[in-house]
């Protein structure tokens, strides 16, 4: 064949193709240097931030990308980042996920498995010497929620009150947001509040690493199980990347280093979970929203 322009085009095309074909199988060190933006919310990880960062770093290495860890205080902020594509991956709660999925198509990646299940509960905790036996005993008291968008830290107790015909606004004397589950434990332990709602995973984790603190509290109610706080990705994230991420998470517990981190975090492993896992959260959200709408529609007292 002669070196004609067509021949040149053909070879370059084959070269591109080959290159493109080869691209996925190249080792990670040769990958693109653009950092992977992974967000963690303080609500969840304030108590073990370092471990979580280690975990993130590990994941980054596994997918062959440098990571940029984005810390945000609230789920709302994290949702904003994801919505605007400023974060690629995030550790969020079930409620923000269901909201964001509906809103802009946030995608579920994996969920941690805790005590053999990718499920957790919402605890109502009170000071150890408190007389309260149920949430009803905390009427007129000072209560702590974690994040307004937290499932275990806000939605579940609100749902519970709504089913009793109450709302947090008229049930409690006052409630505060601590934007941290571990903070809620401390708030109850030091009697800053008369009761609080806490992510069971966080409480159990703290019960292991800081039993003196949890020892100042007692769990008076345990909610039904709901889907564990997931790891989500933004819509539009590269498919391959998403696959790799998922793979990295799922294989983490088998990796010696990863496994060690997970062990410290008291997480068994990560699991790929179906979206239907979070239907219970969806239900609760609907019920609560309807109640509030009805309340809004009520004529105001003069």
């Amino acid at each position, binding site marked *: 064949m002669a070196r004609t322009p067509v021949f040149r085009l053909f070879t370059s095309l084959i070269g591109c193709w080959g290159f493109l074909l080869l691209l996925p199988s190249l080792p990670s060190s040769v990958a693109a240097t653009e950092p992977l933006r992974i967000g963690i919310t303080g609500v969840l990880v304030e108590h073990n931030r370092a471990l979580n960062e280690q975990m993130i770093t590990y994941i980054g290495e596994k997918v062959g990308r440098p990571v940029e860890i984005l810390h945000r205080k609230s789920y709302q902020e994290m949702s904003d980042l994801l919505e605007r594509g400023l974060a690629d991956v995030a550790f969020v709660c079930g409620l923000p996920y269901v909201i964001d999925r509906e809103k802009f198509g946030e995608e579920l990646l994996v969920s941690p498995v805790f005590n053999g299940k990718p499920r957790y509960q919402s605890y109502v905790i009170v000071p150890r010497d408190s007389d309260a036996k149920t949430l009803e005993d905390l009427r007129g008291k*000072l209560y702590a929620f974690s994040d307004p968008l937290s499932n275990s830290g806000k939605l579940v107790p609100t749902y519970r009150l709504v089913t009793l015909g109450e709302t947090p606004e008229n049930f409690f*004397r006052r409630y*505060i947001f601590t934007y*941290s589950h571990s903070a809620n434990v401390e708030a109850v332990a*030091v*009697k*800053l509040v008369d009761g609080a709602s806490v992510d069971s995973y966080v409480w159990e984790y703290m019960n292991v690493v800081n039993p003196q603190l949890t020892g100042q509290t007692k769990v008076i109610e345990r909610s039904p199980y709901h889907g564990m706080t997931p790891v989500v990705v933004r819509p539009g994230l590269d498919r391959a990347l998403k696959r790799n991420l998922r793979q990295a998470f799922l294989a983490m517990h088998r990796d010696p280093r990863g496994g060690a981190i997970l062990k410290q975090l008291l997480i068994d492993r990560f699991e790929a979970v179906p979206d239907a896992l979070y239907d219970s959260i969806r239900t609760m959200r609907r019920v609560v929203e309807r109640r509030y709408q009805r309340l809004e529609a009520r004529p105001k007292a003069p």
Partner: protein
Amino acid sequence: MRIAQRLLQRLLGLSLGAKLACTFVLLIYGVAMALALVALHHLRADMEEELIRGTTLIAENTARLATDLILREDIWELYKLSRDTAQREASVRHGHPVLYVMILSASGEVLAHSRPALMPVGTRRLGDPVWERALGASAATVLPLDGAWRQRGIEVAAPILLDGRKLGILRVGVTQEAMEEHLRQMKLDAVLLSTLLALGGISLALVISRRMTRPLQRLMVRAEELSRGQFGSGPPAVAWEKDEIGRLADTFNEMARRLGATLEEMREAREYLRSLLEGADDYICTADMAGRLTYVNRKFEELGYIRADLIGRNFCEILALPDLVRDGCRHACRDRMSCETLFHLVGRTEDVELRGATGPARLAVVSVTALADGRPEGPMVLMIGKDITERRHLEEQLRRSERLAALGVLAGGVAHEIRNPLAGIRLGLEALEGNGVSDTERRDILARVTGDVHRLNAVVTRMLGLARTPAPQRVPTDLWRLVDRALFFVGHHLRSRRITVHRHGEARLWVLGDPDQIQQVLLNLLLNAAEAMPDGGALRLVGRRVDSWSGGAVDSSEPIHIRGDWVELAVGDTGPGIRPEDLPQLFTPFFTTKDRGTGLGLFICRRIVAEHNGALTVESTPGAGTTVTLVLPAAEGADAPAVEAGHDAA
């Protein structure tokens, strides 16, 4: 209180060394403690100031941080701020732990507290003055710590401001207990250190005090020896240093040496004086105010006494003063003489009789002086007596011889007196023997002879009066009569010299005395006056009573004014007078200006007059005459006819 007193006494009774050591120790202790306390006081002030400053800083800084949170009413963040502030500052601030950090809303409601269990959210303390002050603070204010904390501390309340609007109050409570503990510890350390210093100082003090007091102790020992009279014993006190103590030791040694030497001198002097006293041939004794003898010298042994027996006995047991003195002394008690009697004698010389234990009494002339120069035993009387027993005998003999001499003169005069009448008698008898004597002539002659016989009789009678025994009597005597008699005896001398006699003065002059002795005196005086006017002149006799006289013969040092009833007789002549240089010696025995004469007349006269407690004085103006004044004690007597003034020529 009593215990304190006893303790004080005990302390003061310690030795010098111990006192020195104690003082030293107390001084160290006191200084150290004082310094420590002052330092601690300042330290406390500094620490308190720093506390306030630090706490204010915390409060203000935290208030600034809280501004945002309080706007959002973020209870949890406000709690975390309080908690973190309290925890952080607790470890930093030099042990001033922050007790709490509290955040109040502008309305005074608790929004956060570092220890929520103590102060739940929503608490509001109404009426609490500290809370009110905190709420009202417009700048960082220091408040007292709430009493419920039961510890010392402060609180600083700082307003949380935004653009001048007060959003709330931040209150930081800080305990001072750590500081107090620190200060307490320091105080304890100071006490400990002071005690250690003091204890350490004790040894130093003991060393120093030993060094200082050892020479003093040696001095003290020496001083005690000296006080006991041991002079020569032991070496002199020595101190090596030449400081004050060394000089003291040197001076002390010198003093001891001088003292020893002086005492030795004194002992020698005393021995010497004692030997003088003892060796003196005079009676020397002393008596106290009660008249008791306190000392007699050896001469008293010649009276037969043992000296020790005499001490304490009253002097009147030994001394017998002449009666004249006794009677003349108004204060004398008849039975016992007191020292007042003696004092009456002070400055005088008297004849006394010393009764001996054995043997006859001795006569002595005693001079008495009073020694009252601040002696603790009181005034003392010193009597020095010269044994004049022999001399008195001699004087008596002399007097007798004088008397005899006077008698001789008298005899001459008498002989003259007798011769005339005898011649008259002889002539008359011869005439009667003759023939041719008429009866008328016979009668005349017999009458003249009888008259001469009467005259002879008178002479004999007068002579008899003169020749009485010379026992001195003290009787009231008419002086003028004695004068008359004396004039009779010397009448011949007077007439032969053509001397006129003038008598003046009082008619009644009665004196208390011995008539014969006074007579002797008068004779002597008249004879002297007569002999002073060999070529004629006037003899004046003036007699009067006086109630005091200024005594003192020309040779006495001081005139004596003696009060009482006295009689003064002045015998004056108009002779050439006595030369001034002879005056002092007039009464000296054996002094005479005459060719003949023993020179004893005036001396004896003086003695007699002195025995009568009177005086004899002489005044003379050369060229004009001499007046001898005789003073004798007056006595009461019968009236006598007045004497006519005028001539009394024989």
